[in-house]
């Protein structure tokens, strides 16, 4: 069984209130080393057998069509594990 990881991040210019809230909570606990925190998403897609080039192409398409919304997000990684 093969597995492909897709990672999606909010576009840099989009305000990320969740990341900001996490950053504030870290600072509250005394972890003030971080300039900022941004929160993204990681998807793991499993296929039967080895991951083929065709699978990766399909997953790129699925990532663009469904997993990410290009108005607000970027696909930053598509990688077979």
């Amino acid at each position: 069984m093969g597995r492909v990881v897709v990672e999606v991040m909010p576009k840099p210019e989009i305000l990320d209130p969740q990341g900001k809230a996490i950053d504030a909570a870290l600072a509250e606990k005394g972890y003030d080393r971080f300039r900022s925190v941004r929160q993204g998403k990681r998807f793991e897609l499993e296929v039967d057998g080895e991951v083929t080039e065709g699978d990766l192409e399909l997953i790129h398409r699925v990532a663009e069509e469904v997993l990410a919304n290009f108005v607000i997000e970027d696909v930053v990684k598509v990688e077979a594990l």
Partner: protein
Amino acid sequence: MRIGVITFPGTSDDRETAAAVTAAGAEPIELWHNEANLARVDAVVLPGGAAHGNYLRPGALAAHAPIMTRVASAAESGLPVLGINNGFQILCEAGLLPGALVTNASARFECVDACLRFENTATPFTSAFQAGEEIVLPVRTKAGAFVADAQTITRLESENQIVARFVNDPIGSTSAIAAVRNEPGNVLGIIASPEQSIEAGFTPADPDTKLPAKPDGLKFFTSVLAERVN
């Protein structure tokens, strides 16, 4: 007149929306997300709620429901389509409206009565209003902040596609945008709940005076009825 009200798994405001349709004098037609046709409706409303639990992104999974293929082709031929809150998110995800809706700047679910000012009223759902007119509607959303790239915002401004803005934006929307239409004007999305202000005695409170506001939400539904009759 038959106005379709689409229910997705997780839609919560479909009954109030159907009641608003009835109050306006039209016939609400219940439509289920996996239906393959629109049952000859004259307009369609996507109500608020949390379709598919808002998994992935608000509206993202609902945008791929079978009925949305029909909504898209009917919208292309001019069918009036109104998306309220989650319905607005679904229309953006489906590409029927520009931009996207993201988490409020406060990162909180906001539940407030807010004042909206109309900019352009040339849609089937807002013809009973005047540009510059202010109305009060309840705003209840976690992801109501409208975003789009600068080029798109400029185009929306110049093409008169910004239908209404918040007077005091409670959610941190780009340019305080509260309602947007598509280019032809038949598809409208709004981050506020017209269906929650249809009857005197049960309206939101004016944020300034604290007095009950007028039931102006009803006019969204009577507008589309008047368009049809004319």
